[in-house]
């Protein structure tokens, strides 16, 4: 409060507002917030700091960036998921609501969620539109104990995968990406093409067009999978100039008839999809 009295700018990040928030000004983010809201706040701060008046407020509540509003709308829920902080307590619950209807419970650390089997199935198949889901603090309420805990990486993956066939607003086709961690495919159960895409991204930084070529995937599938991986926090952007050439891998045994034939034969033998 004294900082505010000294006319210092104060940014408040409020987790679970159980009490009235002290009025410290206009720079308040209520967790979980959208990445866009954080960006807007930073823009307002920048303007405030570079403008010699006390009344400089720009774009408050207005979407920023180059993407059209309808495109941004598809990413609203994904943006909320991206700001969840795993350091919060798993005992603080959020309720995922859509049009006032509770769909699922998400733990405060963002690692598990609970929902009915039919809702989980709808999330996995993309038959439920998650774009306008909001997370509401549960204020001490607990989820129904009959609901089964599921890894929320599943929720993140499918929210990102089904959001759009276009690249997410924070991804650029010209940039190179690589995998920084593998999402838990045991919980996600991805299609073979999605495992192949993740594998290619794990080897070296690569652009979207290169990814399509090397993973032998369609552009929409590569795009959606890239979006899903980004929503899971599994991707890093790599500056093309900074990509060091890696030394050639040491070889394992080579199949007599070559690797291409080998991969076909072993997948057919084990009944794995191509």
């Amino acid at each position, binding site marked *: 409060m004294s900082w505010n009295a000294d006319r210092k700018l104060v940014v408040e990040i409020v987790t679970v507002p159980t009490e009235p928030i002290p009025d410290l000004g206009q720079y308040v983010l209520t967790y979980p917030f959208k990445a866009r809201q954080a960006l807007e706040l930073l823009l307002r701060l920048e303007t405030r700091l570079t403008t010699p008046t006390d009344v400089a407020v720009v774009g408050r509540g207005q979407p920023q960036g180059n993407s059209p509003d309808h495109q941004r709308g598809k990413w609203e829920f994904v943006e909320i998921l991206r700001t969840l902080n795993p350091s919060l307590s798993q005992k603080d619950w959020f309720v995922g609501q859509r049009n006032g209807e509770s769909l699922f419970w998400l733990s405060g650390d963002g690692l598990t969620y609970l929902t009915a089997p039919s809702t989980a199935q709808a999330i996995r198949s993309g038959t439920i539109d998650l774009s306008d889901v909001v997370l509401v603090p549960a204020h001490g309420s607990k989820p129904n104990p009959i609901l089964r805990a599921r890894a929320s990486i599943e929720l993140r993956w499918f929210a990102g995968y089904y959001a759009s066939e276009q690249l997410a607003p924070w991804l650029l086709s010209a940039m190179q990406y690589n995998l920084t*961690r593998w999402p838990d495919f*045991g919980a996600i*159960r991805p299609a073979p093409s999605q495992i192949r895409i993740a594998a290619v991204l794990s080897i070296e930084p690569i652009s979207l067009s290169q990814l399509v070529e090397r993973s032998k995937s369609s552009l929409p599938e590569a795009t959606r999978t890239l979006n899903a991986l980004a929503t899971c926090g599994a991707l890093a952007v790599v500056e093309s100039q900074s990509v060091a050439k890696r030394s050639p891998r040491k070889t394992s*045994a080579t199949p007599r008839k070559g*690797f291409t034939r*080998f991969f076909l034969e072993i*997948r057919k033998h*084990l009944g*794995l999809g191509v």
Partner: protein
Amino acid sequence: MAADQELKIVFTGPMGAGKTTAIRAISDLPPVSTEVINSDKETHAKSTTTVALDYGQLVLDGGTTVNLYGTPGQERFSFMWEILCRGALGVVLLIDASSETAMADFRTFIEYFRRIRYDQPFVIGVGRHLSQDGYHLEEYAKELSTHEIVAPLFEVDVRHREDVLLLVQTLLCVLEAQVVEASHAS
């Protein structure tokens, strides 16, 4: 066939992690196991354990054979881990998260196997971890990150064949991506 041209996939992990079960789930032949009565029940309560290795086999349509090896779990047999991994197509590490020593085992195995060959396709399956008190795979992910290792890390139940196949499929995808990259580089 020269030993270094043998096509093989290696299953490793501590005692009781499910290596024998995983090989049994996909092997064409009944796996050969050299199991004896477990005399180390302080470490794990299972009645028998593998002291040398498990062996299974995939015989593909064109006659190509892929050998499946399960390493002994005890660290005192670690000299065999390196021998078995030499030239392998990839390594599947299995960890039983319900074990009290799970995280220490995890560290031991990832450090050891990364040292053998850092770029060998390496997939990790962690079993029995999603309990009522939360999701623990994140702790293993953090440990991997600490070691700067980017490796597939999945929750699995190796009693289910599809879970073992997920691990093998991922291993093949990583190997395939390495082969494609090498062909682009050359």
